[in-house]
């Protein structure tokens, strides 16, 4: 593949800026006199940002509890109940979000990631009957019925459930804190990407007729919730779960606490979380955690960004100074040279 140049112009070449390689050009030279102020400015800006990030991150509260239990005590083969008691000495500044965390769970395993049928999840009839092959071995049930929703991701839907109870005063009754289970999925997922199949006779159940629920599911997909806007494929828990996590230890949003008396956050007092324990994790050495977290403009608690910005900012200023010294030394040297000559 040689791009041979065939016989060209025996004529006078064009005298244009382009052909003569004399296009007007900006020739920036990142000299010390430009770079040094830049370094200092960038350094200062980064330190400023870093401080902001750091304090914001520090201001975010997180409360987490590992409820996996050791394999002996709370490994329920069927569902069982357990509870986590905690008390808040002061107001847990809202809005408060409830997350669950799984560790050593490889949602990003290739075989797992591809094991879904987006066409089916978008409510396509044909895909409902014939899930794609990537869903195997969760493509067809033992009875030969197509599984809806098919695939490993859907099959392994997290099915522990939590309820939060608040004891306003010591010894008082526990009041259930309302958990908002909606608005936890991406808007685009909930509204566009995930769609239920068209209702048959106004019934979602009939729409799913002829399909089997995933083998691990105790109930079919249309019974995930009683709320018609939150059941079937558009159940928000399900939608959240279907967005596969990037890393083997991940958190997923379970609920938002923003209703009733809890708009400002969780007031001080004793709390109890009732956990319906279904999901087996000890089999693969995983852990389950429940996390209450407040959220700021930068998201959840993450000191990394703040620290990183601070470090780089300082580094900038430090190198700025070093460069300044080098620059001045060179300058002197050159002046000396000039003097000598």
């Amino acid at each position, binding site marked *: *593949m*040689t*791009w*041979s*140049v065939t016989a*060209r*112009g025996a004529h*006078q*070449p064009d005298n244009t800026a382009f*052909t003569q*390689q004399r*296009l*007007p*050009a900006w*020739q920036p030279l*990142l000299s*010390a006199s430009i770079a040094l102020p830049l370094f200092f400015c960038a350094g200062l800006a980064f330190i400023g940002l870093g401080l902001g990030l750091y304090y914001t991150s520090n201001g975010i509260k997180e409360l987490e509890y590992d409820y996996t239990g050791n394999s002996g005590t709370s490994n329920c083969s069927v569902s069982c109940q357990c509870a986590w008691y905690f008390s808040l000495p002061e107001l847990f500044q809202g809005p408060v*979000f409830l997350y669950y965390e799984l560790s050593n*769970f*490889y949602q990003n*395993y*290739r*075989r797992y*990631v591809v094991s879904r*049928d*987006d066409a089916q999840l*978008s409510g396509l009839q044909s895909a409902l009957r014939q899930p*794609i092959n990537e869903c195997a*071995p969760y493509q067809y049930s033992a009875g030969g019925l197509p599984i809806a929703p098919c695939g490993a991701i859907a*099959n*392994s839907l997290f099915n522990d459930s939590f309820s939060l109870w608040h004891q306003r005063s010591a010894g008082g009754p526990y009041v259930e804190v309302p958990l908002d289970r909606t608005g*936890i999925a991406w808007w685009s997922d909930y509204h*566009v*990407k995930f769609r239920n199949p068209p209702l048959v006779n106004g019934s979602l159940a009939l729409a799913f007729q002829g399909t089997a629920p995933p083998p691990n599911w105790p109930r079919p997909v249309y019974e995930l919730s009683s709320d018609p806007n939150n059941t079937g494929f558009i159940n928000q828990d399900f939608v959240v779960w279907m*967005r596969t996590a*990037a*890393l*083997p230890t991940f958190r997923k*949003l379970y609920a938002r606490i923003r209703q009733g008396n809890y708009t400002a956050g969780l007031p001080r007092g004793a709390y109890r979380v009732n956990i319906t324990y279904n999901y087996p994790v000890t*089999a693969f050495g995983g852990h389950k955690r429940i*996390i209450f*977290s407040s*959220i700021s*403009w*930068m*998201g*959840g*608690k*993450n000191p*990394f*960004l703040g620290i990183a910005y601070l470090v*780089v900012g300082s*580094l*900038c200023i430090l*190198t700025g100074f070093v*460069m300044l010294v*080098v620059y001045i030394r060179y300058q002197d*040297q050159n002046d000396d*040279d*000039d003097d000598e000559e």
Partner: protein
Amino acid sequence: MKEKELKQMTIPAQRLMARCAGEEKRVGTRTVFVGNHPVSETEAYPAQRFCDNRIVSSKYTLWNFLPKNLFEQFRRIANFYFLIIFLVQVTVDTPTSPVTSGLPLFFVITVTAIKQGYEDWLRHRADNEVNKSTVYIIENAKRVRKESEKIKVGDVVEVQADETFPCDLILLSSGTSDGTCYVTTASLDGESNCKTHYAVHDTIALCTAESIDTLRATIECEQPQPDLYKFVGRINIYSNSLEAVARSLGPENLLLKGATLKNTKKIYGVAVYTGMETKMALNYQGKSQKRSAVEKSINAFLIVYLFILLTKAAVCTTLKYVWQSNPYNDEPWYNQKTQKERETLKVLKMFTDFLSFMVLFNFIIPVSMYVTVEMQKFLGSFFISWDKDFYDEEINEGALVNTSDLNEELGQVDYVFTDKTGTLTENSMEFIECSIDGCKYNGVTEEVDGLSQTDGPLTHFDKADREELFLRALCLCHTVEMKTNDTVDGATESAEFTYVSSSPDEIALVKGAKKFGFTFLGTRNGHMRVENQRKEIEEYELLHTLHFDSVRRRMSVIVKTQIGEIYLFCKGADSAVFPRVPVDEIEPTKRHVEHSAMDGYRTLCVAFKKITPDDYEKINRQLVEVKLALQDREEKMEKVFDDIETNMNLIGATAVEDKLQDQAAETIDALHAAGLKVWVLTGDKMETAKSTCYACRLFQTGTELLELTTKSIEECERKEDRLHELLIEYRKKLLREFPKSTIRSHKKAWTDQEYGLIIDGSTLSLILNSSQDSSSNNYKSIFLQICMKCTAVLCCRMAPLQKAQIVRMVKNLKGSPITLSIGDGANDVSMILESHVGIGIKGKEGRQAARNSDYSVPKFKHLKKLLLAHGHLYYVRIAHLVQYFFYKNLCFILPQFLYQFFCGFSQQPLYDAAYLTMYNICFTSLPILAYSLLEQHINIDTLTSEPRLYMNISGNAMLQLGPFLYWTFLAAFEGTVFFFGTYFLFQTSSLEDNGKVYGNWTFGTIVFTVLVFTVTLKLALDTRFWTWINHFVIWGSLAFYVFFSFFWGGIIWPFLKQQRMYFVFAQMLSSVSTWLAIVFLIFISLFPEILLIVLKNVRRRSARRNLSCRRASDSLSARPSVRPLLLRTFSDESNML
């Protein structure tokens, strides 16, 4: 079988030949029947098969294009590699879809196929134009119109004036009484002068269709061979009797396909070679397959990266199985295998896993790099031909690029080999002085009736006679043609005319003679006409011309005067003439010759001899005999010539000046300053060459010359001993001067003593070919050691092949330096082809050098800009391009590799397939292409005015291990930063202020966004020459990336199985943290680079200041910039050893 028939057919001729030329072998000849008429009724018409007259320069036909082109493309290692990857993707369950590597591969293959197809279509069109053109053939005494491709061997073809010959023809008749025609071969070898071709006497009269049809003749000639200037054949003409008359045929009878008929109304010729067997077709060769040093580096890098790729895949596969040895990692309950997967053999699984990893990481070897490199070379080479500094008004042409593969090699040259005549000098000759019989005459004083004598004895008994004899010799002994500017045969005395010859020396000599009153008026009917001082016209019958060749180094003519005396005039190099004249005549002339040579003039000696009619008979017979010879004609002719040119009398010598080319000295100076070693290889004699070298400042006045010439060696009896002695002596001298510092030797030479070496052809062959004894190797190595220490080397008296030999010798030196040859004549072709880069000068000695070169320029001075500016820029551009490509792909793939540690080594791709595919094609390709075409890290003016900048990049500096490691580590650093930066960013519940959670595709998209911005901005940092195009493509690429990401994520694509990227990019940008992280990661990735640039600039500034100071001080002590054209530096003998 065919051979047998042929033998039978040629029996009469054979008998005849047996009489006049002795028995000859018939192997390798062909017999052509003129007009395809059988010569004798009794014999059967022989079924001879020759190819038809179709020219096929195209490579493909419509049918075989696809398979043949694909086959050729996949023969390239890179394409084959990508094909394998693609096939693996198709067959094995791999992480990325086959589209990701198939699409780029398809793109590359298609673009190349289209380009090659287009080129082939052009060739087809050109072929058709030639093949379908109309020609006239004489068939049955009628003029028949035919397509050119229908011509068969043996057809009689009629060609009109200004038409090109459709095939190789033997001239039968031209309509003129003397049977000559004029031809230019401009399209064959670029020589635009008219050449005369002759018909055989017996056929001259046949100038109508009817009469030509009556001709019964066979032509025997050699099988086709590519040499344009060689042809041996014989025509057997059968008049009424069966006994044939045989005439010899030589190149002067052969009209070549591609040449054009001039100044002749029409000719008849018989086709002897047709189609692909014509000399033109045989000379058609593909472009030379020279590979540049950069390409070798690319291949080396490729191997390194292939190794990295294999290592990565192996590491991942191993770790995968280590990790999976834990059963709950291998198959957790939430992620079970299918039955088929469970049943697959473990070894097979490991193998497919390995392949999958290969596929996942295969992007580390960039497909698009090859396309980009080729595009860069192709487009970049236009800048050379566009450069108006290379445009020469005289010849109305600019530089020409014959191959674009070697652009960057122009920036890597270590040794320059240059021809002298026509390259360093103008090759426009002027007659300066002559020496007749030991008296020196200066041509400057013009006296009509005689010559002013400046030197030598005043009285000489037959001085006037000798002068006239000398001038007549000049007028007669040449091959100059007259070109009249009026009608076809207007040889009227008053007509304007110019002399045309293939050798400018001859023109100068004829013009010189004219100045002294002897005017050559041209040749008419084989008679040369000369007007003498008394305005009388003398006619000489030209009996024979003994043509010039570079082995004999002389030429002769045998003429017959009006009164019937026969003379032989010979002119040639002194070394070729002196041994053939009486010794006592030599001395005074030799003195003049040497003196002239020292002044830088080209000298020729003139000798004559009178031939008695008896001797002439003998000579004539010999000459005719060898001219008829079919086998080994060259050798035989040489021998006969040698015999004839003996016992001559020396008349005198001429001196012709060859002017130095414009700015030759400045160019040599600049090349020296750029650290190049310039060797002059010339066929001229030592004194001439030496003075030219002084004039063009190859040797400075302070240069100490070491001579290894016949002169310096012959003093002693045993040449080899003396040679050995000299070699040892020189080596000692040089090694003392440069104690051990091998690398810095030539830098030191700048401050210390400079050495120049002069060697001549015979000594060189003594050094190289003193074969038998073991010392030859020793000689050679000592010689090379000496050469390497010298700044300038002059090799004189070189035969063309010796030139190539020298180039080859230097090429194979330790460290294999890059060589460049520049020359203008046919004698330079071998050296041009041999060296890494061959440059042809579009000179006066025809276009052969330019045709065989890689680049051709009009003048030697253009070499300066070609190397210092273009070569330097091309090298920097392509080196950066290559490094950048590997860098950006390592950056690209490293995060993907690291991700495997966090996804259970499951070959999960980090980036979406669209990003994987488009990264190299769309997002990052155009900025680097624009950079590699437009970058001028240093201004062109600075590059040409500061030759020492060229040293910065010598020895492939930018593609050595150091820079390569720098780029690799930079890429590794950046890749790590991208991945772990994002990894730590993800150590949080949420990145958004509404608490929602991101998944793996967002992770990959963040990494990818940082990646695209970083590698593009890295290039922006490296760009020192921002034209609007750079701005457009750099910012345009980034904008396109953003736009594409929105677009790609904004639609549910029906053809995708998975809508992974749906709204991922938009959602990502809705998070402030992500923005901050992206900015931060880009900054930290570029931080080391910025730091380095700033530091470099501080240093560069001070360096530049030093440089300008030095320049100022230099200019104070600079030598006079204008030196007299030729300096007589030879008087200071102290410089010579």
